[in-house]
């Protein structure tokens, strides 16, 4: 590829200035005239029948403009992938936090006071919290029509697993648990809803899926999707957690009833108990290998808690069953997954989407194999790692793979060999790899891919329209760089429009680490289309053919005689004149070379590209307290090509910080069915002291299917982190961590037991 002017450079985030000086309006900053403040009354019980709701006192409070319950909704059952949601609880509440009623009032205090005046009579029912308990006969049923609380089952099988396990030199068999953690984005979920005279609803909110969400909400409200418009302002983080949620619908219903705009902002407590935390999972794994360390077979059972209604947990459990199979050259794999209803917060997407949970498990198991086979863990990964131009056991076509290079570069940077040789008590080093996707065909239903619109104004200003979502990760900046590169203009000439479903293309959204590749290819196609139109005009002005001209750094010129030139802005001006005011508008789309998997075998290439990574953590364990410090971290990631290296590093560092929090300190705790640590006092996220310096290494094999060769980084940034740390803990102490998060007291006890055994 010829020299790149914009792509591959670390431009500052294009929205950064407004964020640095406080001028950017986040969702929680938006105000409209006559706006009301909404609050939701949430269930105080994990499971209860609603006997009665009396809203009269709330309605009578001065300043209250609307009080709504299930009765004020179209009473339609809906869901992102199911039909077990209602906007408010109808006859039963199914989790602590379930929506029971809502108010809209002239100020926040009045809204809260009104909540206190709503009287609800509940009849408490037995509840079930653990998915294993929920599967047992006689367990309380979360949904009467779902026997055994089974929301979904998943099966996948390829090859001859039992035979392969029998013939293995070693089989490691064990069970693991990954707990429920909360995204803890800094801006709580919030929304502003307004209804116009025709009944059309506009919702401003931080969402990763403006269009998919609109489709779901149309069903819930009994209206055509055309009557819902979603606008996405800058918003404060998501990490998977900002997809469908009842607060948007509640705000819409309040706006309908009151006839005024309604802003509904979750208190942090509400966000904890009604957001979309990670699917907690129990794993049983069998992993076999030959004496030389070649993997033979893997057999896994996954049980994941859906919570009280299905958001995306069934897809996440399925993903946990088999996505990681394409990290190594597996030939024989089997998995069974159970998604189980529980009376807990409905679980959903959080960076990794099941692949993070299963990567922790597999990479811990690999570490165990390495110990038993006496093979270096890095060596074991290289032996088995899937390479470029290979097809995995499930038919995934891996075009580029920088996995091997990631392991080698990470090991070098971390001084792996030396540290493995010179062991110091209570200090350890651990390694973990990961794979991921850049888009997930079966998750998107009607199509996967991306699209874009590139508009060029008379002054040369380039506006990019896409339908994905910048949640702070730098998506818009990456798109601007891609478009600027393709058009041959400078970054300052490009701006990326706010996503507004009335104007933007129908993007599927930012999840599955798809944004840069799918959205990027979409805007790239649109930019090409815009370029071709511009080139036609430029060629005429330069008296050349379109083949003979080029545009770079905002100037069109004849390739053979570059002194014959005209600025992009001038061409834009002339084009607008030529077309009597019509701007140059390029549109385009990207159709990925993917397929829906076979419904039986699940085989099929589901993503155009697969990112890989390798992370190495160093820890120190306090021998007297069991507390773990992560002292050093190296992360090598195959990103195809880093559109923006600085932003890519930022994503890696952020993902590792989250993985570190998950491993060492984060846990949603339940007691009597209620979340008891719904604040940052007792839900502990890493502070600046907890996260070490992280060295990032970008590996760029240049992915043929990616825009300028890019794949994604969002989720791979976190996937390996947990096992890197727990493998390091094993290296430091000989204790295998099989449950997240690490509990210092348990670790201390295990260390003491081990010391006794070694001495005795």
């Amino acid at each position, binding site marked *: 590829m010829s020299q790149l002017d914009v792509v591959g450079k670390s431009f500052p985030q294009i929205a950064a200035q407004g964020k640095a000086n406080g001028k950017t309006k986040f969702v929680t900053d938006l105000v409209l005239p006559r706006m009301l403040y909404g609050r939701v009354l949430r269930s105080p019980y994990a499971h209860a029948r609603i006997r009665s709701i009396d809203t009269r006192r709330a309605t009578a409070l001065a300043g209250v403009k609307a009080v709504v319950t299930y009765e004020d909704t179209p009473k339609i059952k809906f869901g992102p992938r199911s039909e077990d949601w209602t906007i408010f609880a109808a006859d039963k509440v199914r989790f602590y936090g379930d929506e029971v009623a809502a108010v809209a009032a002239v100020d926040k205090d009045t809204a809260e006071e009104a909540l206190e005046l709503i009287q609800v009579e509940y009849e408490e029912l037995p509840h079930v919290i653990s998915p294993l308990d929920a599967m047992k006969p006689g367990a309380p049923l979360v949904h009467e029509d779902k026997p055994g609380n089974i929301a979904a089952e998943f099966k996948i099988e390829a090859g001859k697993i039992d035979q392969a396990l029998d013939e293995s030199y070693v089989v490691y068999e064990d069970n693991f648990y990954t707990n429920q953690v909360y995204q803890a984005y800094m801006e709580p979920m919030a929304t502003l809803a307004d209804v116009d005279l025709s009944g059309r609803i506009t919702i401003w909110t931080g969402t990763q899926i403006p269009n998919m969400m609109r489709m779901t909400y149309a069903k819930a409200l009994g209206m055509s999707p055309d009557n819902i418009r979603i606008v996405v302002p800058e918003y404060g983080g998501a990490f998977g957690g900002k997809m469908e949620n009842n607060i948007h619908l509640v705000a819409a219903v309040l706006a309908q009833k009151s006839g005024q705009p309604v802003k509904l902002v979750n208190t942090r407590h509400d966000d904890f108990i009604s957001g979309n935390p990670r699917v907690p999972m129990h794993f049983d794994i069998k992993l076999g290998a030959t004496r030389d360390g070649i993997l033979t077979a893997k057999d896994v059972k996954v049980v994941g808690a859906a919570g009280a209604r299905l958001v995306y947990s069934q897809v996440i459990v399925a993903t946990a069953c088999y996505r990681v199979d394409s990290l190594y050259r597996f030939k024989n794999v089997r998995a069974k997954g159970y998604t189980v209803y529980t009376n807990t917060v409905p679980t959903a997407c959080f960076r990794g989407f099941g692949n993070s949970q299963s990567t922790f498990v597999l990479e811990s198991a690999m570490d165990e194999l390495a110990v038993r086979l006496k093979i270096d863990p890095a060596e074991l990964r290289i032996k088995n790692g899937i390479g470029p131009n290979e097809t995995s056991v499930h038919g995934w076509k891996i075009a580029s793979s920088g996995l091997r290079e990631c392991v080698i570069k990470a090991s070098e940077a971390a001084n792996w060999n030396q540290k493995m040789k010179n062991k110091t008590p209570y200090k350890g080093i651990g390694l973990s790899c990961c794979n991921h996707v850049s888009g997930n065909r079966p998750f998107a239903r009607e199509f996967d891919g991306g699209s874009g619109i590139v508009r060029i104004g008379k002054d040369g200003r380039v506006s990019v329209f896409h339908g994905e979502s910048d949640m702070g990760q730098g998506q818009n900046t990456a798109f601007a760089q891609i478009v600027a590169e393709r058009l041959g203009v400078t970054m300052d000439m490009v701006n990326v429009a706010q996503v507004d479903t009335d104007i933007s293309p129908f993007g599927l959204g930012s999840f599955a680490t798809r944004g840069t590749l799918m959205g990027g290819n979409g805007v790239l196609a649109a930019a090409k289309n815009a370029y071709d139109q511009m080139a036609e005009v430029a060629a005429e002005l330069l008296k050349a053919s379109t083949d003979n001209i080029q545009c770079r750094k905002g100037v069109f010129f004849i390739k053979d005689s570059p002194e014959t030139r005209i600025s992009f802005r001038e061409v834009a001006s002339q084009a607008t004149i030529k077309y009597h005011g019509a701007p140059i508008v390029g549109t385009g789309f990207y159709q990925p070379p993917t397929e829906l998997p076979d419904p039986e075998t699940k085989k099929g290439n589901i993503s155009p590209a697969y990112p890989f990574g390798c992370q190495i953590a160093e820890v120190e364990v306090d021998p007297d307290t069991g507390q773990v410090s992560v002292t050093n971290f190296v992360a090598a990631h195959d990103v195809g090509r880093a559109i923006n290296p600085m932003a890519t590093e930022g994503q890696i560092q952020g993902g590792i910080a989250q993985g570190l929090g998950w491993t060492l300190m984060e846990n949603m705790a339940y007691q009597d069915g209620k979340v008891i640590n719904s604040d940052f006092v007792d839900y*502990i996220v890493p502070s600046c002291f907890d996260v070490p310096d992280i060295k990032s290494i970008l590996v760029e094999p240049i992915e043929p299917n990616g825009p300028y060769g890019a794949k994604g980084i969002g989720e791979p940034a976190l996937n390996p982190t947990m096992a890197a740390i727990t493998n390091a803990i094993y290296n430091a102490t000989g204790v295998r961590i099989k449950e997240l998060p690490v509990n210092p007291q348990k670790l201390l006890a295990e260390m003491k037991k081990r010391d006794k055994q070694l001495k005795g």
Partner: protein
Amino acid sequence: MRIRPFDFRVASSLANALIQLDQAGSDARVLAGGTDLVLNMKKKNILPTVLISLHQIKNLEYVEEKDDMIHIGALAKHADLATNPILEKQMSILCQAVGLIGSWQVRNIGTIGGNLCNASPAADSAPPLLALDAEVVIATPQGDRTVSIASFFCGPAQTVMKSNEILKEIRLKKPVNRSAGCYLKLRRRKAVDISLAGVAFQAEIDSSGQVLEQVKIALGGVAPTPIRVPDAESCLQGLSIDDALQKIPMCAQAAASIAKPIDDIRATADYKRTIVNVFVQRCARQVLTTLKK
């Protein structure tokens, strides 16, 4: 989070605050920095009908040496105390402890008086003050009264103060000979956490420089109030530094067995007891090593 309505009154001086507080009745509270009180009001744990704010009183933030005592005004902010040269020189254990309270933001407005009156069993300022045998001066409508810190706390969020009294000053005796102290607190991450268990260890050698004349150990977060543990102290008191170093494990064990922690969402009682043992050992070793030099 809505704060329930209340009457807000401003005190122009300590005397004025006392009068207003007395008049306002037992549902009134005094507001210092507010980092505990406003938090509790938001959580609806405390619902005062009257707040008497001390924010205009500027003469209670002092740290002064007078004769053989150090006087700390109750409205002194933790951030200022943490770096105060008088305290750093003579009772650095207090600086260590208040420097670990909350975040910098909390320390910039939170006061030592507020920390004591909030009376969390895990309050970070309490164990060092216990180990320093501090006294607190309480302003009352009938004049000042002085109470030893050891008898100040009655239970979680309970002190001997009556509802019409205001904490005015903390008074500490300056160490006579060389002394050193160490405060360690158990946290769930490396910064900004409440104390799950806290250990303060303060020791002073005698004029010969050989013998530990005073050994004081206080624990936070492992009993209904912060406590001293004299039965652990006596393991080391009066010994030479070298002898004391040998007896540290016994001392730590004694302290751990006196502690009465509870199981809670933050840690088990068992673990807190283990930590008390470990932290007493670490504090003791550090202090005795310092004094040996």
